């Protein structure tokens, strides 16, 4: 059947800001869907509050609303645009929940809007635990014994009936938020309680634990003709018990016989048919390793993280096809875009092994609970493709950028046996390395299987790598062994370590012996049909399929997995750079390893190499393609870190030179630079050795900002108020790389501002200045940023521009540069310079209308800004006020302190824009998921240094009618200094009401908590902050943020005031 002609305008709902469990994959699927719909001639309206995405570019949809994803705002959009239909299944759980709410509230019916794709009843059947279980019983498909509960006591009753261990799964939450495994009643009570609070329908499923079963996923598609296929199946290396988003996953399944494969395929297809899904769907199953017994765990009636992975793993563009199905096409009439000849009604045949590794944030959240369970904790993922499992696994590990390019963690060697065994059993983020360590220590595969229940097939594969390591050690410079090692995917870095030579020497030896990889195509059909997909991966075999053209080529390095500090913003910039390269007539080649992103969609670039981003892997592509040069400034720290090695090997880095990067990042050179340019900076020094730190800090005077150099997103950066605190900091810093010094700067309080500028070496333009709401001290990625600046004088703006121009010229910047300032009065201090794309590029590009990454790329390739019509200066300010609001995933990360500081903690961002700052802030806050209640209570508990400032906040809350609660010291201060009514509550552990109980009871809507200097983690403050997070209450740890929110409440509240007495005349 052809496409529907009864609809013209389609509203697509995106997934909003990036949080753990809902990340860049929805940018990829959403972008693909919008493009597919436009291809068919539909008018596409997009709603998504995430400014960092490609999806919200106005080239992707006909109209883009970056408004909060709430029923209220969606209704407004629907009223204004009158769409004929709405497509909800491509915006993750957020989009789906929102669409369901619009259906429930009758909004769609009222405005005559049809829901495309799967019907609401089907979505409900899949999403609602009870309905789903009923359906499975009807279909005779087994589900683990379970009980749906609405209270903690019901959960305990069920547990008494069937025993422990059990799994708690809250209904309708992202990435299993709030769920967990319980081994006893106490844990069950705690987790169920949490889950009930977090579930929008106050519902949890308590389920029999089937840990140890194989976890298998099927990505299935169906059209309205009831034709259904499996795009890909995947097997988790980690058995059931660890969230699939946190599991290491291979595709296709490796240990299933044809019978098992089709047993589960039949079940998946039966389910998708009975649900009448029209589009993509994900079915998760558990299979007993010792029989054909299986259970259906979960069904996601929408495009998901797994479908993004399956798309990249197979080449089959699920979101695109799902969008076409939604508008009436059937699988047998949609051409498979990969072959261009065959139809989408087929099941891809892979001739390679795909591995997905989760990327965890524990390099940032060192105190976080690293154990893995049913709550997803990963912020991103990498995918690797190889012609054998070992190669695929090792490429995945290289792609992770966890500080090791091999299956080896030095610190694992130091673990005692008991700890090792314990950690193997109770899996955490480093388990793959611990498995390797156990094998190196001589554990047998059977022994490890007994501890971990990981299938022996995978353990044998790891063992093969370990055995080859041993062979390598014994056979230095043996070419046959070298070849064998390379075929298994072992990196030069590891060979160099084992042979005690440099990586350049290993590379030279391989050059001499011609041990180089070839590139194979991802073509969905295992070479059965001719394909022209420009999508390649490397392997050590004989035939190279990547045909090198005679065009001039530019290689762009992507930014790898999404992690805190390096998010989707860099993918946005990478994609735009690729577009600009193509515009200028070059062949654009991209290298990246993140399956969730738009940049790894093979339609974006002229050629995609899905590869790890290490020096070795990048050099291999360069040797083959011989590009004019490499662009590193859009791929975040990942790409920047490669620049030095590439230049050493004679590769041309395009745009701003390596020297500029060095001058900006090397402390001493940076000081010299600013002095030469007569620019102000906070006093500071680079200290090469730990023991000189205290002396330096004393010289500068406290408070000081300390951090290691060359880091992403302010890792390990702290504000230190005394010598004792500095000692504490240094004591924790033993693992800081001695090659890179520690930086100690005077901590200046003041307003923070930043600019992103574009320069061609002659002209420098500043599309906009952003002012931060929070004063200096909060990482720029965690601050709320405002454009245009509201508090900066013209003179200050001029000074910012002047600094940008001078620095760009001095560093010979070609491309982008980000500069952060501290503003004290009329003085402008330069805090930091990053001669590359920053995370504010997409935000700024969208609100100013300047496609910055595109223009910057043209500068990199030699175009002049003057010829594009620009002259040096700040571009005219826009009328609308826009704010960027950081979004955190704290509820998913237990034991992580929510306090904001110099170290970045946010996972994503939302935008709000409107005529006034308050309106923009309101929208931004709502879009970020915060509630802005107009009444209620507020708990104040602040450090002594903040008390005076707090008083003003207390007064304002009081004026707005909020009840004030405060801990002893804070309450006393409020009473004494402010004469405002305040309810004093006890500290943690004291009789109720205490600080925790009033949060628990819902008496307060805000918590204002600031940190006493030198406070230890796990203090009362920490417990208060976690309590707030776990109860979904805004915990504000910075008084600037508090004031901004009060402004918002103030401007949206009408307070009751009597009119002044009128004089009666007459």
């Amino acid at each position: 059947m052809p496409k529907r002609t009864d609809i013209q305008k389609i509203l697509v709902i995106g997934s909003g800001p990036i949080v753990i469990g809902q990340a860049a994959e929805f940018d990829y699927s959403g972008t693909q869907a919008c493009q597919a719909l436009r291809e068919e001639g539909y008018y596409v309206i997009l709603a998504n509050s995430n400014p960092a995405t490609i999806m919200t570019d106005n080239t992707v949809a006909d109209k883009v609303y970056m408004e909060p994803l709430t029923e209220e705002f969606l209704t407004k959009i629907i009223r204004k645009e009158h769409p004929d239909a709405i497509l909800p299944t491509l915006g993750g759980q957020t989009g789906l929940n929102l669409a369901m709410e619009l259906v429930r509230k009758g909004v769609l019916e009222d405005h005559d809007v049809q829901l495309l794709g799967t019907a609401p009843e089907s979505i409900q059947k899949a999403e609602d635990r009870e309905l789903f279980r009923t359906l499975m019983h009807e279909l005779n498909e087994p589900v683990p014994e379970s009980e749906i509960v609405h209270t903690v006591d019901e959960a305990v009753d069920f547990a008494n009936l069937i025993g422990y261990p059990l799994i708690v799964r809250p209904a309708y939450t992202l990435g299993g938020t709030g769920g967990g495994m319980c081994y006893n009643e106490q844990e069950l009570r705690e987790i169920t309680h949490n889950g009930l609070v977090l579930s929008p329908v106050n519902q949890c499923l308590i389920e029999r634990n089937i840990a140890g079963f194989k976890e298998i996923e099927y990505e299935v598609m169906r059209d309205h003709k009831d034709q259904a296929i499996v795009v890909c199946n995947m097997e988790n290396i980690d058995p059931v018990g660890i969230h699939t988003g946190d599991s290491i996953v291979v595709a296709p399944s490796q240990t299933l016989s044809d019978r098992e494969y089709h047993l589960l395929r039949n079940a998946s297809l039966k389910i998708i048919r009975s649900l009448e899904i029209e589009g993509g769907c994900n079915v998760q199953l558990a299979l007993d390793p010792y029989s054909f017994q299986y259970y259906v765990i979960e069904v996601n009636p929408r495009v998901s993280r797994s479908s993004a992975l399956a798309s990249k793993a197979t080449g089959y563009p699920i979101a695109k096809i799902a969008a076409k199905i939604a508008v009436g096409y059937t699988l047998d009439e949609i051409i498979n875009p990969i072959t261009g000849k065959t139809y989408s009604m087929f099941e891809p045949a892979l001739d390679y092994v795909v591995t997905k590794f989760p990327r965890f944030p524990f390099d940032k959240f060192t105190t976080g609970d690293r154990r893995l369970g049913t709550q997803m904790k990963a912020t991103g993922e990498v995918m690797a493709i190889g012609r054998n499992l070992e190669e695929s696994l090792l490429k995945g590990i290289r792609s992770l950028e966890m500080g090791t390019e091999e299956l080896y963690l030095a610190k694992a060697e130091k673990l005692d046996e008991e700890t090792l065994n314990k950690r193997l059993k109770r899996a955490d983020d480093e388990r793959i390395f611990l498995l390797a360590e156990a094998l190196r220590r001589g554990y047998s595969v059977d022994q490890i299987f007994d501890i971990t229940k990981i299938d022996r097939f995978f353990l044998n594969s790891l063992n093969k790598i370990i055995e080859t390591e041993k062979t390598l050690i014994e056979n230095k410079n043996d070419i046959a062994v070298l070849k064998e090692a390379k075929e298994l995917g072992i990196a030069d870095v590891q060979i160099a370590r084992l042979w005690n030579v440099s990586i350049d020497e290993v590379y030279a030896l391989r050059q001499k012996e011609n041990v180089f990889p070839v590139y194979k195509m991802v073509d969905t059909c295992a070479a059965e049909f001719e394909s022209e997909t420009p999508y390649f991966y490397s392997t050590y075999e004989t035939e190279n399929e990547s045909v090198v053209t005679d065009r001039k080529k530019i290689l762009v390095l992507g930014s790898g997995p999404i992690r805190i500090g390096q998010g989707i913003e860099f993918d946005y910039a990478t994609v735009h750079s690729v577009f600009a390269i193509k515009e200028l007539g070059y062949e654009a080649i991209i290298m990246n390893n993140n399956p969730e992103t738009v940049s790894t969609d093979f339609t974006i670039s002229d050629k995609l190499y899905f590869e790890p981003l290490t020096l070795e892997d990048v050099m291999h592509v360069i040797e083959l393609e011989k590009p004019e040069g490499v662009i590193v400034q859009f791929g975040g720290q990942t790409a920047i870190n490669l620049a030095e090695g590439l230049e050493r090997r004679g590769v041309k880095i395009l745009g701003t030179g390596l020297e500029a990067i060095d001058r900006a990042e090397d402390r001493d050179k940076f000081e010299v630079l600013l002095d030469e340019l007569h620019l102000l900076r906070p006093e500071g020094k680079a200290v090469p050795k730990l023991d000189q730190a205290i002396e330096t800090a004393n010289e500068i005077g406290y408070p000081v900002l300390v951090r290691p150099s060359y880091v992403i997103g302010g890792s390990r950066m702290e504000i230190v108020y005394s010598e004792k605190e500095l000692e504490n900091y240094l004591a924790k810093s033993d693992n800081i790389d001695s090659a890179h010094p520690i930086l100690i700067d005077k901590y200046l309080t003041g307003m923070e501002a930043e600019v992103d500028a574009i320069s061609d070496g002659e002209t420098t333009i500043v599309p906009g200045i952003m002012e931060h709401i929070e004063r200096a001290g909060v990482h720029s990625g965690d601050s709320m940023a405002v454009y245009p600046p509201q508090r900066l004088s013209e003179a200050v703006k001029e000074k910012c521009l002047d600094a940008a121009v001078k620095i760009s010229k001095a560093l010979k910047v070609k491309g982008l540069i980000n500069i952060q300032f501290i503003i004290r009065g009329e003085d402008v201090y330069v805090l930091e310079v990053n001669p590359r794309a920053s995370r504010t590029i997409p935000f700024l590009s969208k609100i100013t209308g300047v496609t910055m990454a595109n223009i910057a790329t043209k500068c990199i390739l030699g175009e002049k800004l003057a010829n594009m019509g620009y002259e040096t200066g700040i571009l005219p300010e826009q009328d609308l006020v826009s704010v960027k609001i950081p979004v955190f995933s704290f509820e998913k990360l237990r034991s992580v302190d929510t306090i904001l500081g110099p170290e970045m903690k946010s996972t994503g961002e939302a935008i709000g824009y409107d005529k006034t700052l308050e309106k923009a802030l309101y929208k931004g806050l709502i879009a970020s998921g915060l509630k802005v209640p107009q009444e209620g209570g507020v708990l104040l508990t602040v450090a002594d240094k903040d008390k005076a400032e707090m008083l003003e906040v207390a007064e304002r809350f009081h004026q707005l009618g909020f009840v004030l609660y405060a801990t002893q010291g804070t309450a006393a201060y409020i009473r004494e200094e402010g004469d405002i009514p305040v309810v004093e509550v006890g500290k943690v552990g004291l009789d109720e009401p205490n600080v925790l109980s009033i949060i628990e009871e819902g008496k307060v809507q805000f918590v204002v908590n600031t940190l006493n200097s030198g406070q230890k983690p796990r203090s009362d403050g920490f417990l208060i902050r976690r309590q707030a997070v776990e109860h979904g209450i805004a915990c504000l740890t910075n008084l600037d943020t508090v004031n901004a929110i009060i402004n918002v409440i103030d401007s949206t509240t009408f307070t009751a005031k009597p009119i002044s007495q009128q004089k009666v005349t007459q």
Partner: protein
Amino acid sequence: MRKRNLILEDGTVFEGHGFGSETVSRGEIVFNTSMTGYQEVITDPSYCGQFVTMTYPLIGNYGINRDDYETVTPFIHGLIVKQYSEQPSNFRNEETIDSFLKANNIPGISGIDTRKLTRIIRKHGTMKAAIVSAEEDTEKVIKELKNTEFSRDQVKQTSTSKPYVVPGRGRRVVLVDFGAKHGILRELTKRDCQITVVPYDYSAAEILRLRPDGVMLTNGPGDPKDVPEAIEMIKGILGKVPIFGICLGHQLLSLACGANTEKMKFGHRGANHPVKDLKNDKTYLTSQNHSYAVNPDSLENTGLELTQIAINDETVEGVKHITHPAFSVQYHPEASPGPEDTNYLFDEFLKLMDQQEKKQEVHINA
């Protein structure tokens, strides 16, 4: 591991490592794109005389079990893989693929760039090949390959030599064994049929004497035109008894009705082939293994109508006789390996037998 070479008729040499048997072997080289089901593939008699290249690079992961054989003794001449597993893992695993091939005197070769090989076959079509020791003189092997005519009696090799019965209480089906997969027997026994398996050269008279409710024409290896006796037999039973043909059986039915078959460039072998049922306009995923296909134009005036086609290249995948109770498909509804989406065809065969019985009752009563 022994170094061995895979040599193609066109002169391409692949260096690899031998596993399984050490014998020198020749065969027609084909590729299969199934990602699971290597045991079923290796033991499918339709591959008689062929070298099977598995495009999925890891083969043998779950070992060889006692259940999933499609025949008792395998007939392939060689197995070509990128990598085979020496340590399989699955609860049904009995032995490695290496030991299985050794026991059955079949050579395997690993370490092959199977993707390159597949691309060669895709481009140049199936061809003759040999697996030999690395020391062998390549030129000599190529010359020998060029001069060798492979035997054309694969059906005889794979068919049963004597009839036997698989008892059941339901419909009486005569299954003409052209190299039948166990899967076909399994699907019929699952439906309570009593099956009489007869050799490929059983005559029409011999079959009709068994008074069957239906005749199953099975899959089998090679060129259908090499089995003229079967074509004659089918002519003799057509219209007298319901017929269901699968794969070679489908080609033989078509030939018996006067259609023609021809060799394909590299055939269809895999578990992901979409086939459209022209009646209900629905497409199904099918398991396929065929080098020959019925020429669509030749169906004209044969009494056969085209019922199913492969959507990607429009190969004839199913036909049905307009007047007689006979239908056939080119693919494998019994799956094993592959998707079971078209399993319902066996039910249709049973329905056809029921209808035929009713018709005859009406006929007798009238």
